[in-house]
């Protein structure tokens, strides 16, 4: 199963429609959290918003997560050791307030288990690569320890060391 999510706040029909279009080529179930939208997919089950437990359960079962380039979903995929395909929202198409998702996607390109589709034309290829990738290995941010230590230091001393 592939889980598609665009967050809960804003719809992202460009991604939902493109995934709906390519579903028949893959022969596995697609499940989508669409956010607010009037579009009803014909090849996949969908819901505007899943509850946290249900969403977590879907994400755990998924072979691949396909998402807008939202960092929350990237962190979720990392935690569950799932490969993820990212397609950034574009401000010019009214999909977000600014183009920060383009930067996020650009900076994450090439990391293990992360596949970026700059737009819908690259989606089929990215999904194919993501499915072929399989579960990723546990990978902790090389700098997370340091950040946690700095935050802990701030809590006790009020200073950044």
């Amino acid at each position, binding site marked *: 199963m592939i889980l598609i999510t665009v967050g809960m706040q804003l719809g992202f029909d460009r991604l939902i429609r493109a995934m709906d279009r390519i579903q028949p080529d893959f022969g596995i179930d697609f499940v989508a959290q669409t956010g607010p939208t009037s579009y009803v997919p014909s090849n996949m089950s969908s819901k505007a918003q899943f509850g946290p437990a249900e969403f977590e359960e879907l994400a755990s079962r998924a072979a691949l997560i396909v998402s807008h380039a939202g*960092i929350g979903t990237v962190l979720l995929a990392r935690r569950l050791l799932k490969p993820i395909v990212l397609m950034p929202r574009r401000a010019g198409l009214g999909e977000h307030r600014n183009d920060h998702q383009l930067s996020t996607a650009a900076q994450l390109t090439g990391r293990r288990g992360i596949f970026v589709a700059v737009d819908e034309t690259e989606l089929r290829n990215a999904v194919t690569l993501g499915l072929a990738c399989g579960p990723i290995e546990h990978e902790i941010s090389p700098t997370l320890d340091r950040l946690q230590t700095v935050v802990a230091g*701030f*809590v006790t001393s009020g200073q950044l060391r």
Partner: protein
Amino acid sequence: MLLMQDFPSCDLRFATTDSDQAAHSGKVKVLSLPDCNLTQPINALRCAVVSLGHVWRIRPHVVVSTGAAPGFFCILWGRILGAQVLWIDSIANAERISLSGRLAMLVGAKCLTQWEHLADDAHIQFRGSVL
């Protein structure tokens, strides 16, 4: 939450716009904030009032926020009421520091970015990231 793993000696509260999610991850002391962004004055005002209520009642010694606008309000009230305040700009902001982050800097919060290229080592520093 990822950043606040082990503080057994501290009385921790998580203020969040998504208390379902917070409850789901097992953190018990959760405070709800209405979601807002700084381009919606009415929602922002409501969030400012609710966050002032929380900060006023709790009088935290330390406020740490990763954003966004609701987090900024907690930083602002924390700063005014004498807390040590730390802003950690969300890793989602890879291009520039968020508006809320720039405001946090303006009110004198200590500030971190999670992208090395955005640090200027004067007002905002890089000390690692969650990804």
